[in-house]
Each structure stands twice: as structure tokens, then as C-alpha cells.
């Protein structure tokens, strides 16, 4: 079983890296870039086949380590 965890900054939290990337994209001449927010992606390979158990474990992983829930949100996708 494979899982992808995406961690992104919460709305309202300043993202200077995203702003710098946005500025650079504009500098390259890409039109219509209204905003860029930077995040992180984690690809995990999990043993077992119980999707619900995996989801619950991944949530716990996010809360304990993968995300800083003071400033970050997380999303979990599971595929076979």
C-alpha cells in the first residue's frame, strides 16, 4: 500500500519562500501567477492492506512528526 502525505502552511501564515518563488515566476515572465504557497510531500510505502488502519496511523504520524500543526495542515491519500 502506498500513501502520499501533503503538508502545507495554514492560511494566514506568512510564507516568505512561497513569496520568493512567486516573484521568481513573475520574473521569468509567466503571466497570471496570483499566489504561490510552498509545502512538502512525503511518499510512504506501508505494509498491510487495511486502509482504515493505515489512515489512522498516518494521521497520528502527521500529528506527531510530519506536520507542525501550529502552522501546517496535512492531507493524506492512500493508493494500492
Amino acid at each position, binding site marked *: 500500500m502506498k500513501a502520499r502525505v501533503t503538508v502545507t502552511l495554514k492560511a494566514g501564515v506568512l510564507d*516568505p519562500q512561497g513569496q520568493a518563488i512567486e516573484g521568481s515566476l513573475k520574473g521569468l515572465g509567466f503571466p497570471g501567477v496570483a499566489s504561490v504557497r510552498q509545502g512538502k510531500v512525503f511518499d510512504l510505502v506501508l505494509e498491510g492492506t487495511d486502509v482504515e488502519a493505515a489512515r489512522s496511523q498516518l494521521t497520528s504520524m502527521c500529528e506527531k512528526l*510530519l506536520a*507542525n500543526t*501550529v502552522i501546517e495542515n496535512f492531507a493524506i491519500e492512500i493508493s494500492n
Partner: protein
Amino acid sequence: MKSAVIVFPGLNRDRDMIAALTKISGTAPALVWHQDADLPDVDLVVIPGGFSYGDYLRCGAIAARSPIMDKVRDRAANGVKVLGVCNGFQILIEAGLLPGALMRNMSLKFVCREVKLEVANAATDFTRGYTQGQIIRCPVAHHDGNYFADSETLARLEGDGRVAFRYAEGTNPNGSINDIAGIFNEKKNVLGLMPHPENLIEAAHGGSDGRALFSGLLGQAA
């Protein structure tokens, strides 16, 4: 005063901290490797600065989840003083011993320079060597020192005198909210700060404004 310094792989300011504690207290701190099962009986636990685990994931995130931090958390709950400087501050926040988050500097640059700090609360064991509102010099060296907390947490910190130091005279090097450079926990026995007081304790450093933090602590502990 008996002290211990926790050593994680990737720290680089541990030697400076050991030297400062030894010179000012007259006793060398116990060194505790992050995999050690036990923490000696001490009055002060210090987590120094550096780049634990190469700043992987988030600064301080991996170190904060190591088993020794459970011991540090237990001691802090029992009133033992805990000081975290720079990466040590990041580790204390990631470990949940202090609130908020330390984000990338607003300039996106690593900042290594001297700043001015205002002593925002001099009525604690850590800061009583200073006077309220005193402006001191202190070096900073970090990439992720931009303190952030939600408005509720911030109001609590400000209302309860839990801001220890603020960047003063327009020297905020990282864009931290309310110019916050260091904060206390609720009981004020845990202090985390980004600047390095251990690097300004004697004439050879070009000043000794950092010394009073350690000597103030010394005056109280046996």
C-alpha cells in the same frame, strides 16, 4: 549550580555553552548524549544551538522526538530549569515545552550579526541579573528564528509576562512577531531564545552582556 547539556548529532554550539557554564558556575556541566537513558540530577538542563539532524524535516523536529526529551519534559514539569538557545529553542518548541513556531527568517537569509535585546521581564530566575527594560547586546546566528504564534497564544504570552527578550532599536533580524526573541513557559522555569548569550560573556568576546543570564541563574541554585 549543577547543570547538564544535552548533545544531539549536528549541534555546533555545545562547546561554547559548556565553556560558558564552566567559567560562570565553576563546575563543568554533565554532558548527556541524546541516546542516554537517564538525565543526572541537576538544577539546569541546557539545549545548545547548532543544526541537529541537519535541520531535516523542520529545525529541531527530529531531536524533539528523541527519548531524552521525555526526561527533559519530566524534569521541567518538576520545576527544573530548562534553557534552549537557538536550535535548542527550536527543539523546545517542537517538543511542545514552549508554544508557537519558529519559521524561516523573513529575509530568507541566514543572519549572523549582533543585535540589541530589551529585557522584557526581569522578574524571573533567568533574567534577574538584568533590570527591567535594560537594553543589552547579543549575537544571533540563525536561518529560522522568525517567531510566530496565533493571536490567542500571543495575547497569553504578552499578558502573563512570558516574553523574556525582544529585539530592540530596529534590530529584529528575522521578522518575528512583536519583535519576540525569547519566551518562557507558563511556570517560567523554561526559557527559549534565538540569540546566543553564551557567546558574549567575557572581554575576549568583545563584551559580557550575556553573562548576567548565567550568573543570575547561579545566584539562585545551590
